[in-house]
């Protein structure tokens, strides 16, 4: 099931989602742009730092280089007279240059000095004193040393690879070797090498002093790639950048190392050998020695500011989003508050309570319109229900009155059968079934004197209350007009006279009236436009009483009626009815018809009257099926049993 979501949520969610997307976009852009700027600045300052450091070192190295260079020039210009003069100069050089640890002049063997195996006087500092040594030693064989051979072959000054000097107190040293030449027999000939040893401790200190953030560091590699300085002591003088690259199978590192020893400079991503962190590395060559300085800048630490800024921005963004959410919720709740009030009030209305006025909504927006519409709907409903209640009450009153009218109408009709238990000459049974509460059919019978039974069946045009009133009038009129000795048609004429005068409703009544002499069975009758009754003879024959050409009563004034006479035999049954019987209708709109009535009647010869009437009523209802009864149904049966054998007492 879908959970119910309020309008506040439906407004807030998409707005917040949009704001979040926009914020994240801005945040992302800001983050990457800040990084880009930081990287650019880092590169610039890194290059500056490297250049400055390299410069510092080159200055010192350049200063050191000058000493053997000058000495070589001096030796070439004025070769020493003897060994003593040379030693004096050499000692002065070592003494006068604080940066220099030691210096030597190594002659090509046989060119100068005491022995044929060569001469290489060397002064060096040992604690606070200057010591002397001759390097021309069988075991040392200085002519095969790198510091001698390489400059000799290259014919240019050379810085040797750094080396570890145990004799000098376990310090890393490097030697600058400068070749010098003499003219022998008019030919410029290689004469030897002037060297100056320097301790690289100061250089290590400079590099070690490079601290970038917490873990950034500098390192220096020689022309071979050997680590001269590095925060990891085990690397210094033991490993080269290539052996590390080999061990790690790191092609990038190998490429970087190659660039470094080839005197290139650059700014590249690098993984710290110390911490394994991702870094940037700047590298630059020392112009003097061809060595290369590398400085590592730990990426995350440099980005710490950016990251911190981002965190701040993120926090601010979240706070802003929460504030926005609060504002939206407040706004939408203030918009929907009257709606919720309305919802509550209308729920009450739907429960049927229309008396509580809806809460007043002051807003002039759509919600206000809705509230006003609801209020007018409530008032309309209330009015409507009041009207309906009134109408219903009126209807109920009318219905109750009709019910009473029905009871009154039925009350004026005979209900008790047999009506004359002490008159064996006749049996009577009748039924009147109104289509509505009250109807326009009527029947009645009464003795005019001891021997004459007056009876009639009538049908007022139309149905309902008007017909029932007319029926009551007719019945009363007949009772008044039918007097002893009066012919049937005279009764009709008099009744018609009264009914037709000022008959503004144009109602009329068809009426059959008969006067039966119960002693003789002689029946005098007159028919005012009514269905002709039947006589079911005791023999079984079914006769229709001849008409008397009378017109319905009440239609026209001053009418004359006729009477006819028929004689009933013992056991004959007179059957009177209204057109509600023959015009009863079934769902197919077919009428019951006289033909059906006659068949049913003929089939019931000799049956008791009540049985005949009730059976017919049932047959008529069966025929009608579900079709509502359209007209009042009335049947009146009179059986003549003949005069009693013995005179009545």
């Amino acid at each position, binding site marked *: 099931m879908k959970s119910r979501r309020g309008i506040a949520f439906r407004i807030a969610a998409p707005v917040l989602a949009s704001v979040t997307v926009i914020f994240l976009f801005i945040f992302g852009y800001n983050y990457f742009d800040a990084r880009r700027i930081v990287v650019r600045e880092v590169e610039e300052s890194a290059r500056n730092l490297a250049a400055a450091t390299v410069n510092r070192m080159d200055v010192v190295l350049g200063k050191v280089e000058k000493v053997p260079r000058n000495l070589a020039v001096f030796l070439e210009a004025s070769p020493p007279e003897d060994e003593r003069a040379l030693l004096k100069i050499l000692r002065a050089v070592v003494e006068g240059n604080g940066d220099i640890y030691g210096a030597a002049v190594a002659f090509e063997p046989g060119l100068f000095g005491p022995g044929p195996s060569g001469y290489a006087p060397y002064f060096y500092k040992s604690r606070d004193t200057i010591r002397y040594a001759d390097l021309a030693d069988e075991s040392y064989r200085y002519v095969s040393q790198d510091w001698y051979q390489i400059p000799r072959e290259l014919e240019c000054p050379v810085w040797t690879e750094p080396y570890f000097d145990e004799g000098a107190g376990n310090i890393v040293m490097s030697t600058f070797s400068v070749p010098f030449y003499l003219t022998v027999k008019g030919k410029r000939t290689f004469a030897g090498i002037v060297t100056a040893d320097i301790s690289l401790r100061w250089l290590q200190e400079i590099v070690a002093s490079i601290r970038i953030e917490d873990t950034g560091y500098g390192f220096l590699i020689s022309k071979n790639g050997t680590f001269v300085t590095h925060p990891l002591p085990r690397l210094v003088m033991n490993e080269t950048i290539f052996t590390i690259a080999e061990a790690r199978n790191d092609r990038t590192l190998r490429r970087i190392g190659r660039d470094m020893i080839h005197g290139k400079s650059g700014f590249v991503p690098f993984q710290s050998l110390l911490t394994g962190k991702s870094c940037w590395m700047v590298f630059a060559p020392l112009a003097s020695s061809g060595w290369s300085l590398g400085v590592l800048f730990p990426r995350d630490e440099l980005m710490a500011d950016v990251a911190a800024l981002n965190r701040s921005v993120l926090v601010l963004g979240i706070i802003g989003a929460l504030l926005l959410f609060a504002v939206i919720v407040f706004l939408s709740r203030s918009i929907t508050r009257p709606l919720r009030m309305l919802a509550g009030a209308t729920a009450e209305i739907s429960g049927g309570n229309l008396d509580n006025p809806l809460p007043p909504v002051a807003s002039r927006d759509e919600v206000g319109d809705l509230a006003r519409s609801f209020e007018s709907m409530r008032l309309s409903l209330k009015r409507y229900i009041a009207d309906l209640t009134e109408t219903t009450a009126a209807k109920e009153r009318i219905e109750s009155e009709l019910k009473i009218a029905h009871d009154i109408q039925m009350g004026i009709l005979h209900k008790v059968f047999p009506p004359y238990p002490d008159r064996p000459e006749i049996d009577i049974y009748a039924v009147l079934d109104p289509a509505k509460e009250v109807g*326009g059919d009527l029947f009645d019978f009464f003795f005019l004197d001891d021997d004459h039974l007056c009876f009639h069946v009538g*049908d*007022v*045009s*139309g*149905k309902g209350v008007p017909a029932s009133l007319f029926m009551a009038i007719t019945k009363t009129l007949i009772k008044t007009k039918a007097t002893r000795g009066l012919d049937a048609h005279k009764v009709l004429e008099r009744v018609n006279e009264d009914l037709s005068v000022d008959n503004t409703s*144009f*109602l*009329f009544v*068809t009426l059959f009236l008969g006067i039966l002499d119960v002693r003789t069975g002689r029946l005098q009758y007159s028919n*005012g*436009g*009514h*269905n*002709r009754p039947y006589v079911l003879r005791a023999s079984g024959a079914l006769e229709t009483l001849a008409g008397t*050409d*009378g*017109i*319905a009563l009440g*239609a*026209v004034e001053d009418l004359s009626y006729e009477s006819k006479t028929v004689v009933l035999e013992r056991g004959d049954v007179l059957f009177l009815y209204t*057109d509600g019987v023959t*015009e009863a209708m079934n769902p197919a709109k077919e*009428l019951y018809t006289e033909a059906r009535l006659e068949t049913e009647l003929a089939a019931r010869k000799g049956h008791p009257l009540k049985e005949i009437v009730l059976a017919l009523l049932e047959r008529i209802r069966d025929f009608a099926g579900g079709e509502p009864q*359209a*007209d009042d149904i009335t049947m009146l049966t009179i059986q003549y049993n003949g005069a009693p054998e013995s005179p009545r007492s």
Partner: protein
Amino acid sequence: MEIRKQKTEKGVLVSVSGRLDAVTSPDFDKEMEGCIAGGETVLVVDLQGLEYISSAGLRSILAVTKKLKARNGKIVLASLQSMVKEVFEISGFSKILPIFSSKEEALSQL
């Protein structure tokens, strides 16, 4: 019930078809009221298409008859079908109303 009215030289020809009973007679009354109020005094009611007439229908016809009579007018009926004819005969109305076998005959007799 369906009522069609057609003016002729001699009066209004009113053709009634369907059923004329308690339900439809108020409509019939209203139509006839309209004719009489419009000054018509001669009505020829053609009942060719009338299947059924109840006593309420008879009352409506009687009402028109009496109203026209008060205005020195006249109503004639034509083409009564068997059931309708029987009702008119039984009630005796056939004796107080002029009835013709066809509307042509009715018109020619006016």
